[in-house]
């Protein structure tokens, strides 16, 4: 009996920290409403949708960032190619609602147009940073989620986020 109560209290605690964590992410601008839209697309026929999309995003972004560093290291910098890569990154980050990554991509593109190598490198560093940040945070979020599901609870993001 005591065990059951303890478990329920733990579950509550977990759920609360999950909600607080997510709220903080939204507040600090790491995520925007598109992220909550993703949860709306998740249902019984598609139970792991969000995790799948986000993992895809991580793979895609890492590849793009590597491509970008290589492109900037070349002796003759091909700005068109860099712009195309940044455009891709911007697209995918906006699809999942990674707001800060998207914003840093926007400023990156402006410097690309101006063909300013120094500024572009700085932007790349910023993009990398934002990406690593959001990666950590989302991974932590999914860990929490796993814990909640393991403890027998469920996430009802939709209701909360609306």
């Amino acid at each position, binding site marked *: 009996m005591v065990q059951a109560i303890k478990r329920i209290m733990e579950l509550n605690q977990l759920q609360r920290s999950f909600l607080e964590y997510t709220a903080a992410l939204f507040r600090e601008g790491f995520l925007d409403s*598109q992220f909550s*839209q*993703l949860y*709306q*697309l998740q*249902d019984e*026929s*598609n139970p792991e*949708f969000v995790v*799948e*999309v986000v993992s*895809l*995003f991580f793979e*895609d972004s890492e590849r793009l960032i590597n491509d970008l560093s290589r492109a900037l290291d070349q002796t003759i910098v091909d700005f068109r190619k860099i712009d*195309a890569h940044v*455009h*891709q990154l*911007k*697209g*995918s980050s*906006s*699809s*999942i609602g990674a707001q800060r990554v998207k914003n840093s991509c926007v400023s990156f593109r402006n410097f690309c147009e101006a063909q300013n190598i120094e500024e572009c490198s700085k932007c790349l560093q910023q993009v990398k940073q934002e990406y690593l940040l959001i990666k950590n945070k989302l991974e932590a979020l999914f860990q929490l989620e796993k814990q909640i599901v393991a403890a027998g609870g469920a996430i009802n993001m939709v209701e909360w986020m*609306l």
Partner: protein
Amino acid sequence: MYGSNILNDGMRHVSDLNFGDPFRKHEMHCRFKLKPPWPWVAITTSSGILVIALLMGQIFHATMNRIAKVEDDYHEMMELKKRAEAADVAKSRFLATVSHEIRTPMNGVLGMLHMLMDTDLDETQEDYIRTAQESGKALVSLINEVLDQAKIESGRLELEAVCFDLRAILDDVLSLFSGKSQEKGVELAVYVSDKVPAKLVGDPGRFRQIITNLMGNSIKFTEKGHVYVTVHLVEEAVNLMDVEMESPSNSTLSGLPVADRRQSCAGFKAFSQEEYAPMFSSSSTNQVNLIVSVEDTGQGIPLEAQSRVFTPFMQVGPSITRTHGGTGIGLSISRFLVQLMKGEIGFASLPQIGSTFTFTAVFTHGCCNVNDQKSQKINNQLNSISLEFREMRALLVDPRLVRAKVSVYHIKRLGIHVEVVRDLNKGFFSVNTENSIPNIVFIEREVWDKDLALSTLFLNKLRSLDCIVTPKLFLLSSTISSTRAISTGSSVSTPSVILKPLRASLLTASLQRSMGIGNRGNHRNGELRILSLRNLLRGRKILVVDDNLVNLKVAAGALKKYGADVVLAERGKEAISLLTPPHHFDACFMDIQMPEMDGFEATKRIRDMESSFNNRIHIGELSVEAYRNISTWHVPILAMTADVIQATSEECLKCGMDGYVSKPFEAEQLYREVSRFSHTALNEIP
């Protein structure tokens, strides 16, 4: 020589005579014998000539003076004219500046209200904001009134001709005055005859101006009773007014007597030419002759002031400005506008009983074209609201015929069928018949309050009825105060009250709120959108083309949610091969920026391919049966773009795309774009 009358004036002429005699010297002396007469002719002539010369001189002199004077006057006039013109220009400039100064902050207020409307609001809040907006607009229109007067004076006022909904305009004006009338305890009602067409072509702003002016005056000068606005066709009005003449004087909206409507339009040319009815029948021409009446039970206009009613800046007395405000130009502008609308305006007023103002106006039948944004919006608003309540049944309990007529009109606008009974007893009978149990019951406040015991019985009867959903009960009341009074005194739970004046938006809001259809407007709209999108996209085969895997997955997920069957492609080339006829796709979402081949290029190629296939099918080179019996292949292609710029939309259309949506998807926009082509897509499904 021989006479005595010698005139000795000293004139003598001596001549030497020489007879040849050397011893005698002879001389001849000539003298005047008689005085010379006055040379009258010469005198007369010369004095005549002198006089004439003098006179001519005088005339000449006077003329010169006159010319000089006239020239001086002319110069002076020119001066004055210049000054007057300058003053006029200054006046107009002053008016324009002042009004602009006032209008700018007013527009600020209205702008803020407009932005407030776009936030999350419930129905009551929306209604309040709408009313505040209308008040703000009324203020702006007051300024415009003053400007109008100036325009009229310089002959620069013109009417426009657009498509509009008369009933919507009256609803708006009603909202404007509803607060005031409820405060004063005056019942405000509007009735538009069924024969008046839904859409008219004319100047809605000016029409509204006239109605607002007349209604405003009525409400200003009425402390009890009612203000009743009716709109009919001229053709039916005459018959109606004859019927009215016969009914007793207390069968008006509030039971109080009113000034005779017939008198207010006596002398209208539209009526005297009744014999030429065929000329004026609106079926032969496109014309709609409306007659509008604003009847009130107020102070009336004193007999001595009645002749000055339409004079600008005239008010009945100086005290009016102090007590009621206003500039006194409303009626004169209204008359001018009515005349521009080829109508006439008149009134009948009995002091202490009330006034009735009536005017006619000529419009034409309206048929809307799709480009008319504003009316489309109104259309959509009303249509989306009235769909929910269509085919519902309602019961109205009201002993007063005129008032019941108004309520029925408003309820019917929502598509609800209404039955009217005069009191609660008859209501019992009606409700007892099985096959016509109403969904909604409206009871006039005074009927409810008259006999609370009977009312309670009725309420219980409704609750005990054998039907799936208990009929909802509403009280119709025209004042706020009576509401408060009752809730303290009775143990009966008072059902929801709908405050009059009735209008479509208010009625719908109250019904929605009580019937639980939609808690928060936006949320409901969102759910409605998702439902509609599901209806549109269920079972459809859709191709999504994007080179970015993440975007592909999210877009696919979104479309799958609406029940669509999604196929993914990463390249333009793949898309082209997948969309080669015959194929089973209902639509394609294509990303624009892709490496190798971008969205525009891919779409162009697809369209070229389609047209070549279509040609070949038409000339019989290919058999239609092999191509699923479709001879005109055109798969709807929508662009997905992250930056929605003007240029993009033109380019999309240029290369054959059917529209564009933004990335990531937004439900409202998605619904709009998909619904545009979905009716054609329907035709292609075998």
